[in-house]
């Protein structure tokens, strides 16, 4: 039960933040986003406090969360959060509290791998030391810091560890996925009459996949990374399609949370930024603020981490941290310069092609350099996806849908999905060049990292196919509108697409 007393304030913090500086015109979405956004905000807050040497204990963390929550609630009230919004938030919070009360008494978390225990050990060390001691920092070269800091909040409960955290995040992701898909289809003009049914079908098909369910119970980094990558890409995409910059602050908070999840995620963050902000038609000012803030946070963390790592480390080393920090800084400068340079804007327009070519060349180079290593890794990865019991026949069905989807007209601003997702797969394969080959088995890194892309693949297929179901309706609408136009000089816009 005591874990609910941590999760509910996090949920409320997230709701307040979304109403204060997120998509406040969509109260159901703000409420659905409550827990993931509140968790991300609390972790970023706790990490910032530890970096300025404020003691990490239940009192300081509780006070910081209370202050942040009150400030966000004040901001939400000033921005016109009305009675209807409060009623929706109240109902949603009651449902979330009921869910927490149901899951908190039972430990169904999967902790069978040493990885889960390493994450929990680091979290316990942080809680015991009251902050990030040098010895703890040195061990963070193997792990992202997000889940470690999230689990170090167990001091706010009376439990040994937050066994319900992955389950709470996974269950709260289900309505987030459904509501975001609903809004995406709405912005694409899909017929509302069967939208809920189709959204329900897509959501049910995704969240019954055995491997995803496994990760919803597994204490590790991949589910969290997948949730926050999904939030950034989808929220940015909807912001772009609707020309509504109010989604950006929460989207970029999700990007920071994603980048803090794993050692390689800052690289993927730069990749998805290249496919989103460089080609965006949103106003530059809100993008600039969000990009500067998130990049500064990520760079600062990487530089602090670099100061404590060993140059002989297996995963992150000071050199690799500097490289990733440099990538992030370089990307921000590139984006800033694009306002004044036609050449940069010209390159930005060809960014999807550039990224595809870079990924292809990098993989070809690695394949030429270490063919056995790369082929063995690719084979193990494919073996895991097609033969492990947790996946079943999932990938055969998804691949069939992807192939059929090639014939369907794509949605607008598709590059983050159409190029970004294959590029993410390429990055997974690219990374193995620098480490031991991927292996056959459930716990293999590539197999786990695939979970991070899975919700985005299903989402992209849905926004591609579902509007196609209305084609005949639209076609007849278009014909009748054209007939109306003959008699009227006013041009009628029927659909955005």
């Amino acid at each position, binding site marked *: 039960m005591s874990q609910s007393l941590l999760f509910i304030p996090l949920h409320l913090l997230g709701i307040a933040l979304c109403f204060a500086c997120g998509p406040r015109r969509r109260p159901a979405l703000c409420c659905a986003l409550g827990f993931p956004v509140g968790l991300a905000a609390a972790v970023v807050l706790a990490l910032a406090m530890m970096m300025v040497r404020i003691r990490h204990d239940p009192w300081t963390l509780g006070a910081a969360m209370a202050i942040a929550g009150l400030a966000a609630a004040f901001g939400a009230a000033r921005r016109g959060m009305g009675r209807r919004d409060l009623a929706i938030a109240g109902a949603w919070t009651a449902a979330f509290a009921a869910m927490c009360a149901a899951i908190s008494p*039972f*430990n*169904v*978390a*999967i*902790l*069978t791998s*040493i990885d889960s*225990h390493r994450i*929990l*050990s680091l979290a*316990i*060390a942080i809680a*015991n*030391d009251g902050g990030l*001691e040098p*010895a*703890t920092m040195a061990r963070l070269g193997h792990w992202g810091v997000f889940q470690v800091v999230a689990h170090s909040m167990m001091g706010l409960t009376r*439990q*040994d*560890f937050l*066994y319900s955290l992955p389950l709470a995040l996974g269950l709260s992701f289900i309505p987030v996925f459904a509501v975001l898909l609903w809004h995406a289809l709405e912005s694409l003009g899909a017929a509302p009459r069967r939208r809920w049914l*189709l959204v329900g*079908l*897509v959501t*049910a*098909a995704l969240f*019954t*996949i*055995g491997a995803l*369910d*496994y990760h919803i*119970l597994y204490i590790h980094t991949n589910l969290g990374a997948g949730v926050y990558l999904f939030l950034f890409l989808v929220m940015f995409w909807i912001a772009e399609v609707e020309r509504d910059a109010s989604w950006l602050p929460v989207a970029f908070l999700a990007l920071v949370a994603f980048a803090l999840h794993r050692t390689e995620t800052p690289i993927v963050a730069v990749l998805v930024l290249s496919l989103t902000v460089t080609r965006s038609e949103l106003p530059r000012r809100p993008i600039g603020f969000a990009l500067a803030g998130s990049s500064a946070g990520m760079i600062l963390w990487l530089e602090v981490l670099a100061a404590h790592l060993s140059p002989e480390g297996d995963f992150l080393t000071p050199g690799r941290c500097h490289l990733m920090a440099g990538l992030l800084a370089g990307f921000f400068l590139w984006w800033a310069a694009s306002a004044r340079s036609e050449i940069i804007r010209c390159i930005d327009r060809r960014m999807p092609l550039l990224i595809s070519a870079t990924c292809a060349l990098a993989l070809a180079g690695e394949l030429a350099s270490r063919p056995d290593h790369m082929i063995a890794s690719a084979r193990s990865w494919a073996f895991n996806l097609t033969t492990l*019991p*947790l996946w*079943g*026949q*999932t990938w055969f*069905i*998804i691949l*069939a*849908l992807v192939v*059929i*989807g*090639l*014939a*369907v*007209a794509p949605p607008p601003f598709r590059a983050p999905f159409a190029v970004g997702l294959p590029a993410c797969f390429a990055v997974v394969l690219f990374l193995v060049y620098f480490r031991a080959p991927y292996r056959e088995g459930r716990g293999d890194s590539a197999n786990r990292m695939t979970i991070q892309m899975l919700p985005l693949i299903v989402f992209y*297929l*849905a926004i591609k*196919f*579902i*509007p*196609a*179901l*209305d*084609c*005949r309706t*639209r*076609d007849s609408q278009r014909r009748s509108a054209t007939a109306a136009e003959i008699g009227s000089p006013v041009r009628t816009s029927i659909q955005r697409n």
Partner: protein
Amino acid sequence: MVTNVLRRMWGQPAASRRLGIAFVVGLALLLGHNVVWLAHHQTRLSCSERVCTSPRRLERVAWRSRTPKISLLALYYLLNDRIPHARLTIPSSWRREKPQLEELSRLEVDVSDGELLVAPGYVEQLRRSGARRHRSIRGDLTWARTRPAPDMAVEVEDYVFLFDAATTDYVVAEAPGEGGPIFVMPRSAYAGVAAR
């Protein structure tokens, strides 16, 4: 180019609608596959792959693991819970465990110059005295735990923790030979059973 050809073939509105229907059928197939999979495997998979309740104490979760590394963590979680900030002397062979013991168990760790072994008869003496899971052997001084070994009929001790509320000075000792239990005991108790 391939997608353009495909779109020219199937991308007309009526055909697109058919593709949309194909997607719905594909999703229904995926959902059906997943439901059948879940129903089929929920009873067949091991506890590590399906919904299965575990203890809420971290030490007990680790202790149930068959992986020796994780089993050892169970001891560290226990020490963090029972004797935080105590002084612990470890044998030289345990030097690599020092950082983890300091961080995870909040102990002040000293490394001994050599091995710390209990007398050969001590393990048998414990066994005869009836050490069982969660059972006190002598008042509140001793707290031992055993666990069933995988695929074995007998119970073996994983570690034995001798707790004394009056002391903050402990040692880690090992039984002579391979595969015996690990002892964490007050220095005074170790002095009485150390191998000569």
